[in-house]
């Protein structure tokens, strides 16, 4: 289950997530009332899904979930537990801003059943953080990590972003090295994507910032992969590295394996048995629907066999566990040996796995594997 928390203290220029900085977004959509609104969708989900199995993973994302009081996050998790049940070794993650946690709030979360925390660190370099509009003080990061460990979080992840305009190779190396020093169990590293409609995209369009060239971004990926590997963090999805299998984000792996999930919150996407849908985007509209006892669903699509096939190739090719060759059509199978001879994939038994350079060309590989 995914729970979206659409609040942030500051809107980052590059971010295209559904998030808001205002305290008051209208009836039911205030920070104070958000947990109750979300809980009513959890109840709606329970009423919709008969005989749903206990939940294996819960992920609180945003926005910045830790903008809400920890008690609220715990209460929402409690509603999931009460309505669906949780498996014994459930993974419960929350994203967090290093500046929005305290030893107390972290202890509350841990005691309330959260098992995993993911800090949005992005960079160790002030001018890069400034370009990204990130407001946290990089000096607070080690402290937040220490508090989380002290609170008993065994699984701790940090998010990094590379390819920010103005970021040098040395800047990126510093960020990677500092992240490694935090001794996280897991690191996600994403190349910055200029999303249409963001303030950042407008700056790029006006020429105020210049995106780095793709070759440099590729070099940054390779550098990160090298340093992470040397530090004992292995890639398991092309933008995610983990200390061991237990440290992988099981929640995300379920996305990539096309499992069923329900997304709670405005704009959240769900996928249940070949049906995909998404909620109304604005928190006020979302709250109104639920207050009126209606579904917050905005639109959706049915994933037919052909689409499911494309999605499976698109998602599983990105995994270190790779893609089973028998998932491919006969036509696509014939291009596998060509991909291998070009050094883009390795064949491991009956699966294909991207090589390091193949990971950088994953979309091209997928295009060749999809009929």
């Amino acid at each position: 289950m995914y729970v979206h928390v659409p609040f942030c203290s500051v809107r980052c220029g590059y971010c295209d997530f559904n998030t808001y900085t205002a305290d008051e977004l209208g009836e039911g959509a205030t920070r104070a009332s958000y947990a109750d609104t979300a809980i009513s969708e959890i109840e709606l989900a329970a009423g919709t899904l008969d005989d749903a199995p206990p939940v294996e993973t819960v992920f609180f994302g945003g926005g910045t979930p830790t903008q809400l009081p920890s008690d609220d996050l715990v209460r929402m998790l409690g509603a999931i537990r009460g309505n669906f049940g949780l498996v014994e070794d459930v993974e419960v993650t929350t994203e967090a801003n290093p500046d929005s946690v305290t030893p107390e709030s972290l202890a509350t979360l841990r005691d309330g059943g959260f098992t995993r925390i993911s800090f949005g660190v992005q960079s160790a370099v002030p001018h890069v953080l400034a370009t990204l509009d990130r407001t946290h003080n990089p000096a607070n990061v080690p402290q937040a990590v220490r508090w989380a460990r002290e609170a008993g979080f065994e699984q701790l992840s940090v998010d990094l972003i590379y390819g920010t305009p103005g970021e040098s190779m040395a800047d990126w190396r510093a960020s990677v090295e500092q992240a490694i020093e935090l001794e996280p169990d897991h690191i996600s590293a994403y190349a910055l994507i200029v999303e249409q409609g963001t303030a950042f995209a407008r700056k790029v369009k006006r020429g105020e910032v210049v995106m780095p060239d793709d070759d440099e971004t590729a070099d940054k990926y390779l550098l990160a992969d090298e340093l992470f590997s040397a530090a004992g963090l292995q890639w398991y999805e092309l933008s995610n590295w983990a200390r061991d299998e237990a440290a992988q984000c099981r929640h995300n792996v379920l996305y990539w394996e096309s499992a069923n999930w329900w997304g709670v919150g405005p704009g959240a996407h769900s996928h249940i048995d070949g049906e995909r849908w998404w909620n109304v985007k604005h928190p006020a509209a979302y709250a109104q629907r639920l207050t009126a006892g209606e579904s917050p669903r905005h639109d959706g699509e049915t994933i037919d066999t052909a689409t499911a096939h494309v999605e499976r190739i698109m998602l599983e090719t990105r995994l270190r566990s790779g893609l089973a060759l028998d998932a491919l059509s006969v036509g696509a199978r014939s291009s596998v040996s060509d991909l291998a001879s070009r050094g883009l994939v390795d064949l491991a038994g009956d699966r294909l796995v991207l090589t390091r350079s193949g990971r950088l060309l994953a979309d091209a590989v997928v295009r060749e594997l999809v009929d």
Partner: protein
Amino acid sequence: MARAPLRGWDNGATMSTRPDAAPQPGSTDPQILRNFCIIAHIDHGKSTLADRMLQHTGVVDGRDMKAQYLDRMDIERERGITIKSQAVRMPFTKSSGDDAGKVYILNMIDTPGHVDFTYEVSRSLEACEGAILLVDAAQGIEAQTLANLYLAIDADLDIIPVLNKIDLPGAQPEKYAAEIAGIIGGNPDDVLRVSAKTGQGVEELLNLIVDEIPPPKGDPDAPPRALIFDSVYDTYRGVVTYVRVFDGKLSHRDKIKMMSTGAVHEMLEVGVISPEPVKASDLGVGEVGYLITGVKEVRQSRVGDTVTSNIRGATEPLGGYKSPVPMVFAGLYPLDGDDYPTLRDALEKLQLNDAALVYEPESSGALGFGFRIGFLGLLHLEIVRERLEREFNLELISTAPNVVYRVEMEDGKDITVTNPSEYPEGKIDKVYEPVVRATVLSPTDYIGTIMELCQSRRGQLIGMDYLSEDRVEIKYTLPMGEIMFDFFDALKSRTKGYASLDYEPTGEQASDLVKVDVLLQGEVVDAFSAIVHRDNSYAYGVSLASKLKELIPRQQFEVPIQAAIGARVIARENIRAIRKDVLAKCYGGDISRKRKLLEKQKEGKKRMKMVGRVEVPQEAFIAALSTGDADK
């Protein structure tokens, strides 16, 4: 569908029931006939003037008026130009002079307005005794108009000079009247001033046509001779042939003979256009009308040919017949190889109403199966390509157009090269390229820049004449290959749009030409080969290689680009392998979006042509060749 049928064709034409008892076709006294055309530049208002005359003579009432009535094809309408000529018969009652009140028959013959169709223009002029020289009072005479004017003077036509658009605030009738008088002689005050838009001066012009233009002469008792000045394919009726009768009479009962080929056809119908087809029993001396014989291809009824009767026909054709000679060739290939049969059928259909279109199948290592197509010129190429894409729903790749070269080998063999990739290897003695005489009209301010442009295109100055104090006519001999691609654009951009251009092929010249090949990953791509002058070959190769580097997207492997003359590489570039093609982030909410992006990327890939392993965008085949100095 090739061409919209004239209204009326589908039901068969009817005999005229015009109430004013105008003289009927076939029995019109030549003395009351006036055959004329309008010589004008695009945009100078020819079609508007024609519309106004149709209205004024009552041939079309205002309600039926489609703007630019005479231009039928969509493309013509969109581009505001006339490709094919038409003839309209207009009864006109004289309103001034001694003969006021007398009914005359005016035949207005519309002419194409572009340099590619000079031959067709000359045939239309041949069908007339007079011409209206129509000039925009805000712009003055343009090069093509001047060229057509000279054709008209050569054909002994009486010229009525007219300034149009005198209602425009920017009109300078005094200045341009003086300019016209300077060119054709006479007094600037004799230049009639009209506004086709408001109708001002149009009646005066109609009266002037009767007064100034002589009636046609001919021998009514001689065997019939009629000049074909246009030939149009109609979906319902087959080929409709437009003729001007010089001698004798063409009757709807006749069997007719085409004098160039001796082919005999049954006559199914004769008539006049007014502006709908009106059946007649005959067409007599001096009359202009149409005939339908049931032939299905316009090449069986060719512009410039003489029509006579099969029995007791004429022995001497009217002069001036030429079969159209393609001047420009280009390869057209379907983007999707499966469309080859569709392209073949489409070309067959287009040829039904385009006698100048020639083609033959060819295959290219890079582009697969397609056709080498010969055109009268670049506009003709563009029109054909556009019609193929629009009317037959084809996606086409066009190679860069080239002219025809003649290569003399040392062993005495003579080889005609219509495709640069077929340029012979071995011992070449001489290479000949076609040349044109180009005429540029421009304000005097741009003389320097125009001369510089012409020199850079290997031009040789023939001479320069001042049309007025601030307008000049510059004549150059230029290799046709040098002006084919972007010369006109370069001329326009260097003269802020003021210069106009006309050219006519004048023969060939021996030149030091070489074939430049392009190699991608070491393999020659035949579709990029070009024939250029040796002195320009190095610069051409460098510029082409760098252009291709920009146009061809990065691939998963390095793509070396080389330009070479024979085995000698003259330029090289390298497209570095793409290293990153991945979106980093892919979580629950991203999946649909990412899948849609994937589908879009795959669509984009379909618009690429695989050349060996290299994906080349379709624009590269033509855009790469615009390496001239147009933008510098």
